[in-house]
């Protein structure tokens, strides 16, 4: 189970990297699809919109600090504050959710982007450093069909 999860996560990351490389050959990379700005700070995650159109979605993450944070995107119909907690009692059990993409370390003051193909449904964004999720670093968004 864990092996599979790792494999899918690696594939996703590779895909994201490929996308970003593809998009990075020019000057400022023009995101291919809809863009969602996400503000990260101690200890909150604030997407600029609650909904976004489906497709190749780019999440532009800005860490306003002061601490370094992680950024994980999962698809889940669970309410954002009810994700399964791991055995340490301090972080989300990533084996029991399906991560679609992850930025492992976003430095304070830095920005990073994650581009993923999203279909209609509910998604949760959170920081999974110990204690951060439980302190409230999560938010949910909804992906809707093209209008």
């Amino acid at each position, binding site marked *: 189970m864990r092996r599979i999860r790792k494999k899918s996560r690696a594939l996703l990351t590779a895909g994201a990297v490929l996308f970003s490389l593809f998009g990075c050959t020019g000057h400022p990379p023009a995101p291919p699809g809809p863009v969602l700005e996400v503000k990260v700070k*101690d200890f909150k995650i604030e997407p600029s919109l609650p909904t976004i159109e489906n497709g190749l979605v780019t999440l532009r993450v800005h860490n306003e*600090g*002061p*601490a370094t944070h992680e950024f994980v995107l999962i698809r889940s119909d669970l309410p954002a504050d009810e994700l399964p907690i791991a055995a340490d009692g*301090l972080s989300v059990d990533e084996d029991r959710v399906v991560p679609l993409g992850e930025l492992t370390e976003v430095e304070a003051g830095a920005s990073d982007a994650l581009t993923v193909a999203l279909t209609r449904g509910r998604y949760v964004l959170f920081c999974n*450093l*110990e*204690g*951060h999720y439980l*302190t409230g670093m999560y938010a949910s968004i909804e992906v809707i069909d093209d209008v």
Partner: protein
Amino acid sequence: MSEGTWEPNRTPRADRPSTVRRTSFLGERRTDRRFRWILTSYLIVTAVIISYTAGAIADQRGSALIINIAARQRALAERYVKDVVLVTDGIQADPLDDAEQLLTNAHALLVGGDVIAVHGADAEVVIPPGSDDPAVIAKLEQEQKLIERLTEIGHDVMQLDASDPMFDDKLLDLRVAGALVTSVSNDAVGKMTQDAEAAFSRLVLIGIALGIIGAIAAITMGVLMRRAGTQRASQFRSLVHNASDLITVVDASGIIKYQSPSSEQLVGIGPDRLVGSYLRDLVLPDDREYFDALLVNGQAGSGAVLTGEFRVRHADGSSRYVDTIVSNLTADATVGGLVFNTRDMTDRRMLEEQLEHRAFFDSLTGLPNRAVFRDRLDHAIARSARDSDVLVVLLLDLDRFKFVNDSLGHDAGDELLVAVGGRIQDCSRSSDTVARLGGDEFAILIEDAASEEAAVALAERLLEALTSPFEVRGREVFIGASIGVALHTGESGQPDELIRNADTAMYAAKGAGKGRWVVFQPAMHQRTLEFFEVQADLQRALVRGEFVLHYQPIVDLANGKLQGVEALVRWRHPTQGLVMPGGFIPVAEETGMIVPLGVWVLGEACRQAREWRDRYPETSAMSMSVNLSMRQLLEPDLVPRVAEVLAESHLEHGQLILEITEGSLLQDVGETAEKLSALKDLGARLALDDFGTGSSSLGHLRHFPIDVLKIDKSFVDGLGDEGSDASALVRAIIELARTLHLTTVGEGIESAEQLTELRLAGCDLGQGYLFARPLARDGLEKMLRTGYVFLPSALEAPSRFP
């Protein structure tokens, strides 16, 4: 100077020691400067490296300690959570102590201060603020807030009972808060470590850069030192090789170990043939004893320096005068012998001898001149006082000489004078002194006359000899002579008196109809009386203000501009009109009146110079020359007098030139030199007047602080005459003056030829009738007003000046 009279230990000459002591070259000084610069830079770079390294090491140690403390916060937070849980389980623990440490350390990491360490090693230390990086500071602030929150929750948890429904929630809050502290602390430590690593990399880079700069400086310095060493050695070699001075190194027995190439010029033998031979062999046999003494004395002490003069033999058979400086460098391993630094003095000695001869002998007849006659008379009178000898002075003045001169010309006159000198000598004995006093006046001194009759017999012989016709330029010329005879019979009496008596008698002879001799009788005191009369008149004249100054322009020969004036005294006699100095200065000298008269002249000249400077500021550089007599120079209060006059007139430094004669310098050499130095210190310049007519030892020029050399009119007179040696002498004098940095003034310039020759010889200034006679004040003022330039046409002649 004849051989054997030189002292091996004479003081080195002022113009020579430079060759011995001055060892600094221009290039060397430049290299020294570069050395200093490189060395200073190297030292600065080294100091920067050391202080930077020391500072960086301290910083690194400090930041390592701080990071260590920051990293412990995480462990402390975990322990705190654990201890709170233990306490709630009823197990003994001390979370309060953990909390205190957490809070204290968090505060210290932010603003600096005491920290409480977990382990003993660095307990209770004071740290500076943990970082100046804003990102780190923000993280530490966050951490501090989280710690405060953690300890608050911990406090709440400890207040609750385990059975309380709130307990589990609170415990989770506690663990979450602990995790947040841990996470943020990790984050902060990570960032601090990153900063420290960057700082360390910078330190390494700067260290490498400084090391490279230091190495470059060290290598440059080494290269420069090596180059300077080579340069110095080659400079020395080239100096020795090219020096006109002869540089010889001999061993203790006088064998030449090294010889510079200039031996080829000085003795006509190359260094190759000289090395290995005795230096003594080059010395003239008469001077060898002296040379041996020099060699022995030269070895007296290591580092000793002494000077000597001797003659050496040239391969062509001639001899050369040399002076030498002997330095004992036996102890110097690189030299290991006595160094003779030898210079050819032949030209200077020849000139000295020529001038000496000129000073004592009449250049026309070769007879002793007035100075020699006077000297011999002085000695003879001194001797006669002891031996009671009868001394006789005969003064002989030619009759009709003026007629010959005027009708047949000066050259014929000169020829006649030479012949007369010969006949007088033929009549005299070799022990008598025959002198030409000037013009057509001769004198004979007989030191051991048996009686008055013997003297009269000589006078008779002379008259007879001179009455016989002379053949001049193919013509027979008849002249005669009048002779005055004065006897000194061992009683006290002055030489001047004896000459005056002979003179009186001679005039008596002329008055009696010429062609005869007259022996002086005391009754012939008329002239003496006149003398006293003049003296009394002089005193009155000074009181009544009958003296006036006339000013003879001194001209810059390069451009004809007025450079200065010489003040000359005149006597506006109530009955005789304007009397020239010849009419009263000798009497004034003899009676001592010259002293108050000289004071008046000095004061008036300086006052006038000041007035002109104020009225014609453009002539401010114009010098005022004033003659200083021998009597004045002997006055003890001369220096304060001059100081007073200069203070009153506020003349510029160097504007006043005091002219003295060579004779004045012979009086009391030590005291005179001191006085002259004192006068120079007051701001006066010193000129040697009538140069070449006195004793003419060039030593004067070296021993006295002279600034200006005035070449006597007698030299200038001879310029332009064919067959005259005057040109060569004048050139030699000017050349000599130039080497001694003296300004030269040609006196008595009367013709354009003389001017041209002087200019070609490089004479700086000149005065004489060609430019202007001495002028009364008004006459000179007219020149000053108009900015008069002298003789532009004469100055257009070809000259060495641009």
